[in-house]
């Protein structure tokens, strides 16, 4: 029987990521992991993590917060490691030594996904391993002290692109990894955020039911790195979605579908002003930087809606042909 996605029923399930982990107070990563594992509560799962906040804080010395089989080998190869585990599982299944329906999930940070682990991720997807790769995206190398990564947004202050008189934070745009993964032609790619948890859990469920490689990019606020309060991770996640800074969408077999459209698109200032990493943008004489950011977000959002439109009309045509 499939467990319904309501909190009352889910709360009766075992939490397979325990307390006692050493992630910072108010970190959103354990919340994201909890949501993923709850969505997968009907399956036995095997999880792999690359080096990152989640990995170093969930298995210090001989203490592990995982109640599922979990493997870590290095920073750059979580996807490759899990490919091996998944291949072994397939071989054992063929030999009749295992009969369980096991799901394989990689949960890695943005550094281990966007930059250092990109080649192993790309390879695992291309080899069509049956796994779900999740990136919990906190937009910089938070574990080692807030260095910029490929996921860091434009004009964010980090220790390796400090905002000052020379540069206003990271000068380059962030990499659109979700689109890069979609370009691999894999069956399912999605973007999610913990503030919209039913959407996140539905996407995890959907992904686990599809055979083959899947990728999810999940927004994960970090109060230490973003210089915010410890209690506003979910608030920031909601604002990121409502300002279209982090659109929620999925690409299923190449078809783009936006899963959440804010009723009223909020101006980007509302998201930026709560964070110390964007404080410098509110200094006098830097107004054009915010409008520049707003323009980038608007363009992205418009393009996404147009992409959805292209597919929507095609789907209608198909339906007409069937009729």
């Amino acid at each position, binding site marked *: 029987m499939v467990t319904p996605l309501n*909190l009352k029923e889910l*709360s009766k399930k075992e939490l397979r990521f*325990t307390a006692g982990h050493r992630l910072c107070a108010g970190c959103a990563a354990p919340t994201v992991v909890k949501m993923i594992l709850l969505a997968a509560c009907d399956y036995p799962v095997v999880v792999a993590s690359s080096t990152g906040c989640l990995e170093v804080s969930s298995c210090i010395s001989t*203490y592990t917060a995982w109640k599922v089989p979990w493997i870590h080998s290095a920073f750059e190869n979580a996807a490759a490691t899990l490919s091996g585990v998944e291949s072994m599982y397939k071989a054992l299944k063929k030999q009749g030594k295992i009969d369980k329906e096991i799901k394989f999930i990689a949960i890695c940070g943005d550094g281990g996904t966007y930059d250092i682990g990109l080649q192993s991720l790309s390879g695992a997807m291309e080899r069509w391993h049956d796994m779900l790769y999740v990136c919990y995206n906190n937009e910089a190398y938070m574990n080692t002290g807030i260095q910029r990564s490929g996921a860091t947004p434009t004009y964010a202050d980090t220790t390796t692109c400090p905002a000052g008189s020379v540069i206003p934070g990271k000068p380059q745009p962030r990499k659109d990894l979700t689109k890069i993964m979609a370009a691999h032609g894999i069956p399912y790619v999605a973007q999610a955020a913990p503030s919209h948890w039913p959407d996140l859990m539905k996407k995890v469920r959907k992904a686990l039911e599809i055979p083959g490689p899947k990728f999810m990019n999940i927004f994960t606020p970090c109060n230490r790195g973003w210089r915010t309060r410890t209690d506003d991770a979910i608030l920031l996640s909601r604002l990121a979605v409502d300002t279209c800074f982090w659109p929620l969408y999925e690409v299923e077999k190449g078809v783009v579908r936006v899963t959440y459209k804010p009723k009223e698109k909020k101006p980007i200032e509302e998201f930026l002003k709560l964070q110390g990493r964007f404080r410098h943008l509110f200094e006098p004489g830097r107004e054009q930087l915010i409008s520049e950011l707003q323009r980038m977000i608007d363009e992205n959002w418009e393009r996404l809606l147009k992409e959805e439109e292209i597919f929507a009309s095609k789907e209608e045509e198909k339906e007409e042909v069937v009729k």
Partner: protein
Amino acid sequence: MIGWKQIPPGMVILEAGSALKIKTGSWRAAYKPRWIEENCIQCLLCWLYCPDNAVKVEDGKRQDFDYEYCKGCGLCALECPGKKGNKAIVMEEEVR
């Protein structure tokens, strides 16, 4: 804490969820959450959002906080919808 000679090869950890032995409640610096039962609508969002599994739920019903693990971030208090504008979770100064 075990010595390096007792660690299994490959740094394998054989006890699942052994991190529960680490009581992260000692991290709370100044504030701790208090649950006000009469304002609680049993939405269980605090249980879902809590990064430290410090909200106990039994048979679908919210119980009190687990202060052994609560790091005092305040996320639950901020997100609590409460009843008619009255929050069911408030952060209070903690004297240790």
